[in-house]
């Protein structure tokens, strides 16, 4: 299957979100995904626990040969962000690749300088490309919202509203 031309950088939160609704593998088949060594270390920390996030992290780590893992020097630091997040931001700047994250703090502090998206971008994308039905995608969105404790937050409401219109 030919991969789409787009390459995305995913952080820990985005990887966990996508795997929690079982679409990470599909995304990896369709697009090139890059992440950092720091993200892998974070996932390894999560994987030490036997809770739901721990199990999700273990699943992601089993797939790590399917994505590109890099380190990036932090030449431009945003003070409100941790070093893992600053590294991802710098990687996005350096490679001119969009960053996918569900951390609202990262989105808020980087959106003027890089392309940044929330993980439901892939739900919309896969629906539009007819990999999933509308009902299937809505179901996955509900599940994602429950796992992430989004409730009726902005990400959930805007995504749901748009899916229903498609």
């Amino acid at each position, binding site marked *: 299957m030919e991969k*789409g031309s787009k390459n995305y950088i995913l952080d820990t939160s985005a990887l966990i979100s996508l795997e929690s609704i079982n679409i990470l593998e599909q995304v990896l088949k369709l697009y090139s995904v890059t992440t950092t060594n720091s993200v892998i270390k974070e996932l390894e920390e999560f994987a030490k626990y*036997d*809770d739901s996030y*721990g199990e999700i992290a273990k699943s992601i780590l089993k797939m790590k040969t399917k994505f590109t893992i890099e380190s990036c020097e932090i030449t431009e630091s945003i003070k409100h962000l941790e070093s893992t997040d600053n590294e991802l931001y710098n990687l996005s700047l350096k490679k001119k690749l969009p960053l996918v994250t569900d951390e609202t703090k990262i989105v808020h502090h980087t959106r003027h300088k890089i392309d940044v*998206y929330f993980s*439901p971008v892939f739900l*919309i*994308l896969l629906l539009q490309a007819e990999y999933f039905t509308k009902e299937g995608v809505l179901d996955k969105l509900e599940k994602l919202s429950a796992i992430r404790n989004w409730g009726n937050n*902005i990400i959930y409401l805007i995504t749901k509203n748009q899916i229903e219109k498609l």
Partner: protein
Amino acid sequence: MFSATFIYQLLSYTIRVINMETEQFNIRMPKDLVQDLDIISKLLKVNKSEWVKTKLAEEVHEEKNKLLMELSTLYAKGMIGKKEIVQLVGRDIADEMESIKIIAEKSVKHGIEYGKRLKKLHS
């Protein structure tokens, strides 16, 4: 049901709160409640004030998040604007909510565009 990671985050928040700069906050409490606190303090072998501070930090964290979630729902539905949010909770939170809304909308737009391209590629 709480996961280990959620408990870790809550504890981290609580520890940060306890280690922050402090301000005096006096409240009068019913005698019965003070006696109950004495019992807790003795059974758990903890300092009464520290225990109350910890419990209060947990409750404040949960309630704040719940209320901000409700506010963001109203904002996402267009029932209130950024101006009202600034007045209620300040510019920093209002700016962050605006960022989230903009990027949520941008994510949808990107998903539609690239979904169409992918469909074309595989058709």
